[in-house]
């Protein structure tokens, strides 16, 4: 098996960190704020990718997971005056537990139904947050005035980038092990994985727990960054599609792909704002996603490597195969 940490891959990670850490010295606050949004989206997209991109169990319920994380954290912090050091881990834990209770039965059903069931969860929690204990959830208005971890665009930039970077690197290393192979194999042919003597339910549960952990981290930290939450935005179908599209156009099953996808999408949406102020923007990215997906199903990340290899005069097609399996070259 290939080594997990090759010199080249470590150098690329370091380069990535260095470039991203330099940005606050070069760009304005507005730009940094967009980056922060992109980093959180990247966290959600990676969370989605670990479960759905790999195993083929498409989750339409990720806003639901993020929702548990944000609500739990916000309620603990705002209503119960818990310090951040408690509200964030508890919020993440709540995401993993709450998610597992509801998703676990769903992981035993076939892929298509899985998507439907998870979509139903999102709708369910949307309704619940408005009806059950609105004194805690803030009902339709949500909660605002939540304590922040740090102030200023630059600090928050480093915080959110650090989070995203740690998550990305950990997931990347994890997926380079045989576990990554096994999860991808489930996506290709789950029966055959069982036929290799592997308990696929256990594997899927593990992938789900990792996914929920990452979604929970994203949710818990983001609510402290934004300082508010509103059910309408959180359980919005556009939010769901933004997560999925970010993972898919970037290049599913690659970790790096969903990050690129999230940055690309966030900036695309931001720069389209002056021309297309309403939700029509989502149509445009829908079309971009569709085009990319039709012509380059392996995503922006694979295109990047093709270009690199053209540059070096290597054969590009061999790269595309290996990116889909190994996560990264």
């Amino acid at each position, binding site marked *: 098996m290939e080594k997990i940490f090759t010199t080249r891959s470590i150098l690329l990670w370091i380069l990535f960190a260095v470039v991203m850490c330099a940005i606050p010295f070069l760009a304005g606050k507005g730009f940094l704020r967009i980056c922060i949004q992109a980093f959180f989206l990247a966290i959600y997209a990676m969370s989605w990718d670990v479960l759905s991109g790999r195993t083929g169990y498409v989750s339409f319920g990720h806003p639901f997971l993020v929702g548990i994380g944000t609500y739990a954290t916000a309620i603990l912090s705002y209503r119960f005056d818990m310090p951040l050091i408690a509200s964030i881990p508890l919020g993440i834990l709540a995401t993993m537990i709450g998610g597992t209770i509801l998703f676990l039965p769903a992981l035993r059903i076939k892929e298509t139904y899985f998507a439907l069931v998870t979509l139903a969860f999102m709708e369910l929690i949307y309704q619940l947050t408005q009806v059950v204990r609105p004194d805690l959830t803030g009902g339709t208005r949500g909660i605002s005035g939540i304590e922040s971890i740090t102030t200023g665009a630059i600090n928050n930039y480093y915080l959110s980038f650090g989070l995203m970077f740690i998550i990305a690197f950990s997931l990347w290393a*994890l997926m380079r092990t*045989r576990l990554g192979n096994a999860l991808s194999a489930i996506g290709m042919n789950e029966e*055959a994985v069982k*036929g*290799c003597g592997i*308990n696929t339910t256990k594997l899927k549960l*593990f992938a789900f727990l990792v996914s929920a952990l990452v979604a929970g981290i994203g949710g818990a930290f983001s609510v402290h960054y934004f300082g508010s939450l509103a059910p309408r935005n959180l359980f919005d179908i556009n939010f769901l599609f933004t997560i999925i599209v970010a993972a898919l156009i970037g290049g599913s099953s690659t970790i790096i792909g969903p990050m690129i996808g999230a940055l690309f999408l966030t900036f695309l949406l931001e720069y389209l704002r002056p021309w297309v102020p309403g939700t029509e923007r989502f149509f445009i990215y829908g079309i971009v996603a569709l085009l990319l997906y039709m012509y380059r199903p392996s995503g922006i990340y694979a295109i990047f490597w093709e270009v690199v290899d053209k540059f070096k005069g290597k054969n590009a097609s061999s790269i595309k195969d290996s990116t889909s399996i190994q996560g990264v070259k």
Partner: protein
Amino acid sequence: MSVVLELNKVVKRFGGITAVNELSFNVNKGESLALLGPNGAGKTTIFSLIMGEHRQTSGSIKLRGEEISKLGTHKRINNGISRTYQVPRPFNELNVLENIRVGMMPDSIMDMIWKKSDEKLEKKLADNVGFSSKEYYRTPSELSMGDLRKLELARTLATNPEIMLLDEVFAGLTVGEIEHMSQLLHEKRKEGMTFVIVSHDLRSLEPLVDRAVAMTFGHQIAEGSFIDVMADEEVRASYLGE
């Protein structure tokens, strides 16, 4: 001779269809048993029942004297039974070595993460079934039917079985590939592997088996040496259409 696998009055109904009907037979350690029967007789269904991919409606299946009917597929595989499929089921985006790697994987997440795969053994298994080193990195779409059956066999061998259930091993192979496959199975037999083999290619099958069980419409019609079973009137009527 000790019995390793024992089916007793196994019944499987799919809705109104009785695919397997009160079928009983034993497989002895180290022997090779042919499972014969016309299309739709229930041969593949029996394999799925033994593997736990389907659950029998009634009856018992024992492995080394212990009832395994309640065990999940992965547990049965970890207990030493493994099968190939009539239609090969490779992992389409993985290459030959990676396919074998999944077959060799431990059923423990921690081991998957912390223990490296044994590339030497992967290559040995690939070589064993007749892949050349330049074929290691091919994906299933670049392989012939013969290669896919080889890969299927290698992946099954990778689970380190004691009993192998082979479903239509020769289907779709060229004459040369059949010869190679036979050779390989001969070797495995010599090493002491226990086999249950389903094949419509009787001529290739005959030299590979010690005994045969013939069935039609889910129930057994004959059992004994391959020659005796093939001479049986009912077998000739149902199987060979005579």
